[in-house]
């Protein structure tokens, strides 16, 4: 069940996140004459970290438009284009820059349909890349999903795998009539995932059950989904602990039933997110459980996220700033055993961290 993955680009059926993005971008342009890309550098030789390379040449400059540095108006222009029959796909090479477009995203895109009594629709996809590693620092590292997910009218997703992208983007572009914010993780771009061909049947706009388990539920987002799957495999192999892993995926519209059923079964919950905890994903999932029935919890909820500070650039501090495979496995062992000295062997920090360490841009 779910998506197998491997950091292994040689495997025959493997593809990278970048390749999945590229396939979706190309597919959007090829299959939807109304679709167009608008973003800084979408037409250059680096092509938004490889996800749009060559598309300007193939589809022309008016389908793949470079934009000035002007985030607020670019989003506003996207909205206006959507109102007049186009399908805009916008890119922010860092989610941080989308803060300049908050007015158009929150006051306009999110409200255009409701505010006018359903008389308009604003179908558009806004891609934002979460930066991390190699000294991205305070302004190139934010993971702003909860800011958007707080606001009714927006659909917010965080694809964690190439398959999640392939299952979601084409469907949204073809079918979804409202604005979608997608947070892509920069560190996933280069990772090759082994996978069956696109898993059919996953609802594109809800959560995904990736692994069944009876001891603890791990709800994770984005790159933390990978850590959660690795942690789960490690715990199963070394300690017989079976973690159930849920990829939250659609952070604005989580699958409540899936999460509540899982927590009811396991009695234990860990939320592993890519942003700060306060007013974030951990908070929201806690709310869902508490409003439903907190008595299903046999232990306090454990949460992982960025340290409560802006992101420092020094590697030593950055390493402390983010949760890791190791801290996640440790947390799970503690939650399941109820003890800090749980005796469970922890995984080599190396595994995923190696991927991060290999990351040196392009930025």
């Amino acid at each position, binding site marked *: 069940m779910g998506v197998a993955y491997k950091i292994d680009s040689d495997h025959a059926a493997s593809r990278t996140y970048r390749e999945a993005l590229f396939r979706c971008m190309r597919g959007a342009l090829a299959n939807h004459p109304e679709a167009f890309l608008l973003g800084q550098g979408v037409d250059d030789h680096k092509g938004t970290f490889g996800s749009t390379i060559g598309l300007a040449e193939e589809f022309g400059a008016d389908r793949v438009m470079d934009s000035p540095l002007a985030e607020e108006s670019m989003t506003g222009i996207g909205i206006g284009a959507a109102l007049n029959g*186009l399908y805009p796909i916008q890119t922010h090479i860092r989610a941080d820059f989308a803060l300049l477009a908050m007015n158009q995203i929150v006051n306009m895109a999110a409200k255009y349909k409701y505010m006018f009594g359903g008389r308009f629709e604003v179908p558009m996809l806004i891609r934002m890349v979460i930066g991390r590693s190699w000294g991205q620092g305070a302004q190139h590292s934010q993971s702003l999903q909860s800011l958007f997910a707080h606001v009714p009218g927006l659909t917010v997703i965080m694809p964690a795998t190439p398959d999640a992208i392939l299952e979601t983007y084409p469907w949204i572009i073809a079918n979804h009539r409202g604005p979608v914010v997608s947070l892509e993780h920069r560190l996933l771009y280069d990772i090759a995932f082994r996978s069956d061909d696109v898993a059919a049947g996953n609802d594109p706009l809800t959560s995904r059950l990736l692994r069944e388990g009876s001891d603890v539920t791990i709800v994770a987002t984005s790159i933390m989904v990978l850590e959660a799957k690795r942690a789960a495999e490690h715990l199963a192999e070394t300690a017989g602990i079976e973690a159930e892993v849920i990829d939250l995926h659609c952070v604005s519209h989580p699958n409540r039933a899936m999460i509540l059923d899982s927590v009811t079964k396991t009695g234990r919950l860990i939320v592993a997110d890519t942003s700060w905890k306060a007013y974030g994903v951990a908070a929201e999932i806690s709310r869902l459980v508490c409003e439903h029935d907190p008595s299903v919890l046999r232990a306090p909820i454990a949460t992982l996220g960025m340290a409560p500070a802006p992101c420092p650039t020094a590697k030593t501090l950055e390493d402390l700033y983010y949760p890791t495979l190791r801290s996640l496995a440790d947390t799970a062992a503690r939650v399941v055993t109820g003890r800090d000295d749980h005796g469970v062997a922890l995984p080599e920090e190396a595994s995923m961290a190696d991927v991060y360490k290999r990351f040196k841009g392009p930025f």
Partner: protein
Amino acid sequence: MKFANLHERLFYEALRIRRAEERIIEIYPTDRIQSPVHLSIGQEAIAVGVCEPLRIEDPLFGSYRSHAFFLAKGGSMRDMFAELYGKATGGCGGKAGSMHLTAPEVGFMGSSAVVASTIPNAVGAALAAKRRGTGQVVVTVFGDGATEEGVYHESLNFASLHRLPVLFVCENNGLAVHSKLSDRQSYDLCQHAATYGLPTQRCREGWNFLLVRDEMARAAEEVRSGSGPRFLEYQTYRYQEHVGIGCDHDVGYRSRAALEEWQANDPLLHDSALVDAFDLAIREEIDDAVRFAEESPWPGPEHLLADVA
């Protein structure tokens, strides 16, 4: 209604808007319109002059001060009053109120209460028009204050860069709420817009609907022929307070003399023959709309969560 000429038709349109807003002033103290209202009394000539040369399918984007443009673009009087009353039969089912009037069926594409925020939307609609070859001219109407927002700069730049079929129409009433233009702006509106490569026109006689219309017609024709975006500044004067139904020439931020100067030119105040000829028909339309609004049902709970995403 038959009109002898364009002058009469525009006069009628302008008077219709004025009378509709005067009716709002009458109704307002009864609390049946529970919505902040930003009246265009004194500014009607711009709306009628700008909309006359436009086609129904030409998209126009407005602001919170949009009763005039809503009606001039062809929005229905009933839709407007029912919307102001918050009724289910309003143009947006009561969810929009005065600040967000809209009428997509006649190309009135939405009005926003966040100053300047529909300007880039119009530019985007123009991008779509050009790409899809629709032949539309897109219009964005905004106040002088809106030009202070950064997005205005970004929008002028993009529209010009891509030679989009969009007309930037500034209703310059010299005020943003109570602040004078000279306390807010270091630039001349036309000179500034011109540096983006936009042809600009300034019309000082914002009360003169024929002149407004002629300048707009020329500009719209140019834009439609593919010559790229343009900027039109219409100087005008707001008679009422910024928001609400009152007059506020006594509170100190502007003089009564300026009001009287504008009123001296206001055709609606001086051509009593035309006023008399049109008033009855207009009153009937407004009476009907108000009755419609009053008799219409409120939106029910089933609408609360409809049309969110």
